């Protein structure tokens, strides 16, 4: 038997062995390998990393790092704020938020929190700093301009004005 044929059969045998090892070893190995690459989900979906938390008695407001669109992405830059209740949010929430942490108020956000979680949410944002865009009665318009409920938290994405 030629050396190429021997190598071929050896490779075929190893392939069968690899098939046996897939559920016990290879699947987990490749999964861990991919996870270890240190990739992250696009911030347009994830909202970007958290940078600051403002705590009140009933809830905390988590402020994320501003997100900018890549290349030809059709979204605007935005900043995400999460209202996370300690137990449950009040029926109406209105807050003046210092988004950039400079000690000056940047936006006033107000929305109703319906008891039925399936009821659509609407948010109003008043811009106190021209860097942020005002929003009136906005639901789920775009990834960069929305209010949504994720589990017990309410997420608001405020578009940033183009400078």
């Amino acid at each position, binding site marked *: 038997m030629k050396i190429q044929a*021997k190598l071929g059969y050896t490779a075929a045998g190893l392939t069968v062995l690899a098939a046996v090892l*897939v*559920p016990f070893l290879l699947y987990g190995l490749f999964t861990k390998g991919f*996870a270890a690459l240190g*990739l992250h989900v696009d911030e347009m979906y994830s909202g970007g990393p958290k940078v600051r938390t403002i705590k009140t008695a009933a809830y905390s407001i988590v402020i994320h790092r501003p997100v900018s669109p890549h290349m030809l992405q059709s979204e605007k830059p935005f900043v995400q704020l999460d209202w996370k209740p300690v137990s449950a949010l009040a029926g109406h929430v209105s807050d003046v938020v210092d988004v950039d942490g400079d000690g000056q108020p940047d936006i006033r956000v107000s929305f109703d929190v319906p008891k039925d979680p399936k009821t659509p949410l609407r948010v109003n944002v008043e811009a106190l700093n021209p860097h942020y865009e005002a929003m009136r009665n906005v639901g789920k318009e775009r990834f960069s301009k929305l209010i949504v409920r994720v589990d017990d938290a309410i997420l608001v994405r405020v578009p940033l004005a183009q400078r």
Partner: protein
Amino acid sequence: MATEARILPHREIAARSIGRSVLLTLPIVLWSLLIFSNSFRQSNRSVQMAGIITAVFMIALFFMMMRTWSTYRWRRWFFVALGLLFPVGFIHTVMVMRGSMGIPMEEMIAGRTPFCFMPIPLLILPAALTRTVVFPGSILPGGGMSSSGIAAMVGLWLAITLVVGKGWCSYACFFGGIEEGMASVPKRAKLRKIDPRWRYGPWAVLLAMVLLSLALFEPAYCMWLCPFKAVSEYVAARNTLGMVQNGIFIALFAGLVVVLPLLTKKRTQCAFFCPFGAFQSIFNKTSVFDVKIDRTRCSPCVLCQNACPTMSLTKESIAQGETLMSCMKCGACVDVCPKHAAVWHIKGTEVAVKPERARLMLLYAAWGMAVMFGGTIIAQGLAAILHVFV
């Protein structure tokens, strides 16, 4: 023309003996028992029964492959069952978990969009250039429909691809079975003359989608062109744009997965459109198994060319004794050849020397993956159906 009756082995020799066939099936019996042992232990009767039925089904098909020497027609039973039962299990789970096939924005933001293998080639460039995954899921288990996360799906795809290469499209893909089923319905193809340039379609779609995904930073194929959104889940239509997207999904599904396979008896979506299939073709170069044409035996009658569901054989390639790199190792050409000129082959070995050994080694590896991945999906779909009755 390749008709249903002709994609059968033209063997002069008798069927393999039952005893020998049972012996050759034994490893798959043990493997199936191992894979479905979890289902057997479940207290839920529908899950338990689905596991038993699927295990018996997969073992029976492998036994028939051994007994009849034929690969294609028995593999097709598995593949069609996979194609039909995947949507059943998936839609059932989606409806139970969120009450709609539409993916709401909040689920995307929460990273709970289930990840299938289709966008894998689209993620490579953005990930390589910016370390970003342009998919609204979670890398690690993210709860909800995201199940075990993107890393797990990529890990599974890598592991199976290492074993079967482009054979993924015949033994693992949970979408291709629908069109393979459709293609098997008519006795004869009504549309026989297909411009061979359509074969470049998947490469064109792949190139366009890879570049668009990089430019738009979104999984462009999933957003705009995936025909299988029609039977899995789709972007919740919030506006006119969403309606257009869903209209495209339905039109592509109807055209490429239902109507054209019925007219051509080909897997038209796989052969002319699927970018993942084109990407997977690259792994035919790394796979040790392939199909060769023994030129000393070939007439050539082009029965194999007509039987190939993805047009992976041409007169030129037959003359060279090769299949094209889009060959997905389904076995249709091998089974249809009256002269046994189309043969399974292990790279490095001589063509047509012990082709059954090559077939057995391929089938143990590929059927092992089919039981582990496809079999589990079949069992889930079956459990959803049995749940109604049990």
